[in-house]
């Protein structure tokens, strides 16, 4: 039996098409994936992200523990509420998971990790704690549910639905969170639009979903979440990178902090392996199909592969993220094998779309 979030019955009652996503029974769309996508780009949409796992790291050694565990450096987080995107690496510099780390107090950090990898992450963090002897509490917060509200009008809709979030949320900067009684309001997301991710006790999430719907926020499923994140040039764990991929080969060098002589897990392998691939966006130039994961890419430097591909509702064209040989550069034209055809695509720098604006030509 797949796991369900506390919003499962509401999704089914609104006619959602449900799919198994990493062992969770989740809505893929509520009628039209494309219309849900446009709602987020142009107005406001909401996603049930309660399958994602919140893990609190508590104790005096929390910061030091995470400076060892994460490839990005939580020492950069000096303002309470500030967030950081990071990879969790294994010893060979493969990506165990990608996550967001929030800093609230010197003895309290919060991680938000992927659903399908949550159990593996907890085991890995537990092992690192045992190896290091760090005196920290690793607390999975199964008592919290999460809704992501995204879009140009998302913030005002959230305040209309939840007046108690206006005070903590009004002046929140991007990639920053605040805690208000049992809620967390974070100005983060996975769509390339403004908005909030709201965590709250599971007992409150059904009423919260209804209040947001009443405020004019459109429910959106995992289908739209995928096209939105791809347009925003954001990686999906398990597709664009995994335990066999270094972050340097997945376009995530910017999340690896090597400035300090900090000994984090995977650093040695990362520095000795170096970068072996380019990771860029592709924009399909020819008609004849849709770019998809695992399609081969012929470049002047050799063969590459698409890791994520879809049809972009905002561009009206197919787009992809692809891992290609070193030396492939933005502006190159490559050939993608789509069924029995070779279709031309241009190498571009992601994101494709951000804050409603198209950034590639």
């Amino acid at each position: 039996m797949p796991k369900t979030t506390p919003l499962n019955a509401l999704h089914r009652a609104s006619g959602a098409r449900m799919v198994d996503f990493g062992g969770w029974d989740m809505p893929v769309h509520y009628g039209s994936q494309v219309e849900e996508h446009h709602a987020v780009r142009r107005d406001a949409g909401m996603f049930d992200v309660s399958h994602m796992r919140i893990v609190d790291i508590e104790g005096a050694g929390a910061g030091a523990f995470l400076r060892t565990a994460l490839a990005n450096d939580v020492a950069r987080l000096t303002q309470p509420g500030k967030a950081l995107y990071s990879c969790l690496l294994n010893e060979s510099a493969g990506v165990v998971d990608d996550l967001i780390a929030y800093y609230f107090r010197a003895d309290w950090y919060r991680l938000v990790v992927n659903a399908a990898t949550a159990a593996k992450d907890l085991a890995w963090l537990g092992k690192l704690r045992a190896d290091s002897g760090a005196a920290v509490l690793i607390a999975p917060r199964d008592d919290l549910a999460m809704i992501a509200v995204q879009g140009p009008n998302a913030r005002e809709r959230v305040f209309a639905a939840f007046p108690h979030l206006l005070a903590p949320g009004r002046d929140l900067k991007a990639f920053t969170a605040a805690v208000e009684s049992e809620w967390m309001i974070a100005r983060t997301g996975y769509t390339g639009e403004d908005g909030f991710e709201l965590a709250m006790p599971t007992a409150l999430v059904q009423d919260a979903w209804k209040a947001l719907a009443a405020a004019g926020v459109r429910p959106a499923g995992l289908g739209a979440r995928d096209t939105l994140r791809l347009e925003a040039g954001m990686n999906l764990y398990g597709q664009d990178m995994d335990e066999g991929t270094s972050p340097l080969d997945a376009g995530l060098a910017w999340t690896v902090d090597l400035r300090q002589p900090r000994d984090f897990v995977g650093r040695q392998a990362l520095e000795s392996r170096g970068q072996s691939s380019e990771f860029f966006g592709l924009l399909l130039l020819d008609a004849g199909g849709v770019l998809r994961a695992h399609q081969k890419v012929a470049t002047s430097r050799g063969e590459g592969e698409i890791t994520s591909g879809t049809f972009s509702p905002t561009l009206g064209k197919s787009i992809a993220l692809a891992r290609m040989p070193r030396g492939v550069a933005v502006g190159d034209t490559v050939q993608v094998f789509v069924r029995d055809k070779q279709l031309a695509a241009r190498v571009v720098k992601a994101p494709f779309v951000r804050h409603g604006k198209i950034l590639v030509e």
Partner: protein
Amino acid sequence: MKLPQELRYTESHEWVRREGDGTVSVGITDHAQEQLGDIVFVETPQAGRKVARGESIGVVESVKAASDIYAPVAGEVVAGNAELGTSPEKVNEDAFGAWMFRIRPANPADVDALMDATAYEKSAS
């Protein structure tokens, strides 16, 4: 399930309509378009192509997946619906109106051997 009674159906979710001139039109069922979601690309076969029953002769791609379209009977393709190349969303809007290609069956009795609406409804549910 929305199923015109006068049509024939395949297990791979094509519908088949007799056109009265010895040819049949073929599209995908409303159930199929609903499963696929928003359709963004349709490729139809060229007129003149000889096809075998069950041969993959077209493609429908939605935002989330690609799906082959199969010849329901052996015969010769007499037309592909080029309009779907520029307006693939018509398949979502009216699956039983959005024909993809027309075939002149090699053996007209092959059409009668396909499933009727009742049998298709059972096979698809």
